[in-house]
């Protein structure tokens, strides 16, 4: 347990020591701000009954940020340590492989959630000016943040796995982005599958992270979606663990 906290703290600190961490935060903040400008502009032209949080996810900026930021956040986790050789000093301490994977993933997740904080500010600004209590209530906000965290966890786990496969951060980011985009497109594939293969189609529809996120943003907590995200994350982290252990059986 001590190893876990020590490592998580260091990994998290490493984000703020590095230029990359600040760039990620800056880009995310910029895109969030931009999306809100677009959103408010649209709302000014045509008022909508839907909550602001839901409208935000229809702008695609959210997905742009997730798909762009998660591979960059996770790319250094294992690849950099392998490249610089610190992987060896790390793995020869009495800390288990599982602890290492979980600590690195946790640090990435915390950083990712920190990255989303500016959005909270934007939402508060919106609330202040729309003078409508229904525009943003605590439940919707909680549902949305849970959604952001769950989607993030899934994509970050994919990024972790990508990073554990290679010594090159660039390759890790590219593989991570590839996995992320594939995951994202999976749900849209359902519309392409012929109706005759209805079981397959239904199964694919369950994997639609885009629609699931819309539910979350509406404040709807669908257990299936939660289970899907959590099990997907766990599976990808398991693959990461196997990749980290691979030096033992390769």
């Amino acid at each position: 347990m001590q190893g876990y906290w020590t490592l998580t703290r260091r990994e998290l600190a490493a984000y703020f020591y590095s230029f990359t961490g600040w760039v990620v935060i800056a880009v995310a903040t910029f895109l969030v701000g931009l999306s809100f400008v677009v959103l408010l502009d649209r709302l000014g032209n045509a008022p909508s009954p839907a909550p602001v949080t839901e409208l935000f996810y229809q702008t695609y900026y959210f997905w742009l940020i997730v798909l762009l930021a998660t591979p960059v956040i996770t790319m250094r986790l294992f690849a950099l340590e392998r490249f610089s050789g610190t992987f060896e000093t790390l793995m020869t301490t009495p800390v288990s492989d599982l602890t290492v994977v979980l600590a690195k993933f946790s640090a990435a997740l915390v950083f990712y959630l920190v990255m989303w904080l500016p959005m909270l500010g934007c939402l508060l600004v919106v609330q202040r000016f729309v003078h409508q209590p229904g525009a943003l209530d605590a439940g919707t906000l909680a549902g949305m943040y849970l959604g952001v965290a769950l989607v993030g966890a899934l994509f970050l786990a994919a990024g972790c796995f990508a990073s554990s496969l290679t010594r090159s951060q660039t390759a890790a980011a590219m593989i991570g982005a590839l996995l992320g985009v594939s995951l994202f497109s999976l749900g849209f594939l359902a519309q392409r599958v012929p109706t005759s293969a209805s079981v397959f189609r239904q199964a694919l529809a369950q994997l639609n992270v885009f629609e699931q996120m819309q539910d979350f943003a509406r404040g709807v907590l669908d257990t299936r979606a939660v289970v899907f995200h959590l099990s997907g994350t766990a599976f990808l982290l398991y693959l990461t663990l196997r990749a980290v252990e691979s030096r033992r059986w390769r």
Partner: protein
Amino acid sequence: MNDGWMIEVAHLTKRFAGRTAVEDVSFQVGRGEIVGLLGPNGAGKSTTMRILSGFLPATSGSARVAGLDVFRDSREVRRRIGYMPENNPLHPEMRVREYLKFRARLKGLSRRRSRERVDAVLEQFGLTDVSRRIIGQLSRGYRQRVGLADALVHEPELIILDEPTQGLDPHQIRSARETIKSLAGAHTLLISTHNLHEAELMCHRILIMLDGRVLAADTPENLQKLMAGGGQVVAEIAAPAAALRECFAAMPEVETFDLSACEGDYYRCALTARAGVDLRPQLFALARDRGWTLRELTRNRHSLEDIYVRVTRPEEEEE
């Protein structure tokens, strides 16, 4: 409880896809010893150390540290080892004290204990003045000391250093050697190097590795004697075995000898001379005086000699 051996390696073999890095290596290291693994690049030194430190598993054979199997009791073994890999990898963005504190906590030291130990190793390696500096901005010599401090921060019984003086300037090398020698006694040290001179200076015992095998293991003095001496002389003589034994036993220059019967009356005699003596003229004289037929007389250039040449050559080219 474990025969006093700190390291026991038996028939250790490590194969990577299509390549054997370490083949049937066996050796022991006693507590408090400084043992050097000497060999050219690619001899299997680093792989052996990685297996001992629990980073890589062996393909076959066993390795025990302080009586514990390095693979089965991996975490317990890792607690007892301070390992500094090749090129001394560090986190360049961290500050010296912060890094050592992080490492101490990672190795399971309590908050209070880690503070005490970090202070102690900072003092021990003369890092107190730079403890707030960023590691990436330190000179190589200082970074080397940070790596050593990390290896020692949890007071391990066994310290494994892979090429600890690589990339240092001569002055830094001298000070690093002094530091390493000062660790003897309280700790057991396994050090790898491709520098023969360095191994002789620092180590109580040297294991010479080449192509994944241990070719010789002895004190530097004995290895030198082996080099300086005439080595082994092989003679095939047609004579009664008893008479040969008697003669060889009577020759003061012969340290050990071994007879094996060949076809006919011939015996193949392998003789090891005392340091510095070439036995060949004496053997010829013996055969001539006794009227025995001598059909072969050769001196085995000890294979070690070739290795020494190979081991030392890269160093000479560098200088």
